[in-house]
């Protein structure tokens, strides 16, 4: 693993005990992210994206068990003390959640919520914190930030609330920002604005970012690297341009095909991925995608493919019958 990496996730697995048995939400994931770089994590609902981000932040549900190492800035977060972790958060690690309706406290003003983080972590005095809060709101594109400070979350629109959530996350200049589906709950027209805002602030502050989404279109132009997750595992990982030029994993191809196209004729049926993800409490012997994969062979049903190196550098995939090579390998 790259020593210079800001964040490296090594062999991380998350197990959740459920009444129906053990649920492996994240299955032996390896990731690395350099300072100032952007990683996109893509996958459908329930594939373990959010659990992976919570594992990185050490905000897993109490019953969850985490194995493996989460190295951040030379420290293993999984073994940090509660107090050490608390000090590290906000100043080094920050997160933007999916739904800005619930990620802000409904009974506190925006100003209170913004300044309390500043007062706690940056040890500013009240007037300096207020000034900084106004700057932050202005930076995320909120008009009349002075007046807005005294307002409550319900007086803001969804997009504005997400901007405030981003301002709070950015308030202590974190080194890593995890954006967990930051645009899913928003209007399509607002999505691009929020993504552009995140990209702009990321460049300006030179922070690393993990962008979690189910939309390959979102990560296409805005990330350096993409990891595709399926059933808790990373099934393909590559620098973004390489991935979009030559994907190997049938699941990635299926995800891309499922994006509606503007140039398609009206009423064209969308090539949705048939079937459902496997039950995570009953792991399959073979590749988790095999029941839904059109290239699947007997080997796929009985043996789990490991991440293999593709011909392009840094491109890894887990498939016995990668696309473009499918005809040659299949004997």
């Amino acid at each position: 693993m790259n020593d210079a990496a800001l964040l490296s996730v090594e062999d991380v697995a998350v197990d959740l005990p459920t009444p129906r048995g053990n649920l492996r939400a994240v299955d032996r994931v390896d990731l690395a992210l350099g300072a100032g770089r952007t990683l996109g994590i893509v996958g459908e609902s329930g594939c373990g994206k959010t659990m992976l981000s919570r594992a990185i932040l050490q905000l897993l549900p109490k019953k969850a068990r985490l194995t493996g190492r989460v190295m951040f800035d030379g420290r293993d977060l999984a073994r940090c003390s509660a107090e050490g972790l608390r000090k590290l958060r906000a100043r080094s690690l920050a997160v933007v959640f999916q739904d800005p309706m619930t990620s802000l406290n409904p009974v506190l003003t925006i100003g209170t919520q913004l300044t309390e983080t500043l007062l706690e972590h940056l040890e500013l005095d009240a007037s300096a914190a207020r000034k900084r809060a106004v700057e932050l709101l202005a930076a995320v594109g909120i008009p009349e930030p002075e007046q807005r400070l005294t307002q409550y979350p319900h007086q803001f629109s969804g997009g504005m609330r997400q901007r405030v959530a981003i301002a709070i996350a950015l308030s202590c200049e974190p080194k890593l920002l995890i954006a967990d589906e930051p645009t899913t709950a928003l209007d399509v027209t607002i999505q691009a604005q929020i993504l552009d805002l995140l990209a702009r602030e990321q460049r300006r502050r030179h922070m690393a970012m993990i962008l979690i989404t189910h939309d390959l279109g979102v990560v296409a132009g805005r990330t350096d690297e993409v990891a595709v997750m399926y059933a808790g595992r990373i099934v393909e990982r590559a620098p973004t341009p390489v991935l979009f030029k030559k994907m190997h994993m049938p699941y990635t191809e299926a995800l891309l095909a499922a994006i509606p196209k503007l140039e398609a004729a009206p009423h064209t049926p969308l090539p949705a991925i048939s079937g459902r993800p496997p039950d995570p409490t009953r792991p399959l012997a073979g590749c988790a995608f095999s029941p839904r994969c059109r290239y699947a062979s007997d080997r796929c049903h009985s043996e789990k493919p490991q991440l293999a190196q593709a011909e392009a550098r840094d491109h890894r995939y887990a498939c016995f019958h990668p696309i473009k090579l499918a005809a040659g390998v299949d004997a």
Partner: protein
Amino acid sequence: MATLELSVQEEIIAAPVKQTRRLGTLFWMAVGWIVLVFALAIFAPVLPLSSPTDMDMLDRRAPFSALHWLGTDGLGRDELARLIYGARISLLVGLCAPAIGLTVGGALGMLAGYFRGRFESLSVGSMDVLLAFPPLILTLAVTAFLGQSVFNLTCILGILGIPTFMRVARAATLTLARREFVIAAQALGATHARILLRELLPNVALPSLAFFLLGVAVFIVVEGSLSFLGFGVPPPISSWGSMIGEGRESLDVAPRLAFLPAIAMFLTVLSFNIVGDTIRAITDPRQG
């Protein structure tokens, strides 16, 4: 012990207030009555009142007059003075008992709802035990052993109020603690104390305070009932409940002796309910 139904009250009052957004004359009349009762109760010793305990055996059950504005009771004591001094007891018990319940029960409920686990099982279990214990027997036992006094009465009623307040606070905390803003606060490095006090308390305080004002109304009635039965404040101290109890003996000759304190209690309880619900409806920032 009377149990309160918070949700029902909310629905009834919330609709008209949201419609008009004006406080309305009823609200101001309720506020006026509460202020009047409080002022009279607080300034009772300096008001030009006759003593509430001086008996005038020659002037028993006297009708309204310039000397005794509201007449005298069965022992010739001034009814107005007894009403005002009774308000002190009723308000003291009615405010302090639910305050004890709110503080202890609210804190327990928030801790239980936030930390869950063994602490929650233990506290919920012990509250169930307390709820299952017959409140009247407990009150009787305590007053029998520790003596009848306003302090003992307030304490025992406060303790009996803890489970209900704890349940309200715990229920509110349970739903709130799973909301993303709590996880967001954790992600920003907030301590447990900060999350409980800054993030959760302002949210839990709203339903709890609305419940508190309803609780005040209920506890005034409970204190009245206990005094009526003779387990409340010891004579000759007057309380509205004991005045109704004493008035019962002369219902046929002078029904006003029972009805005047009953009317005072009715108006006060009604006012607390009106004010409580109106304040809750207009200060609630959680809309849509």
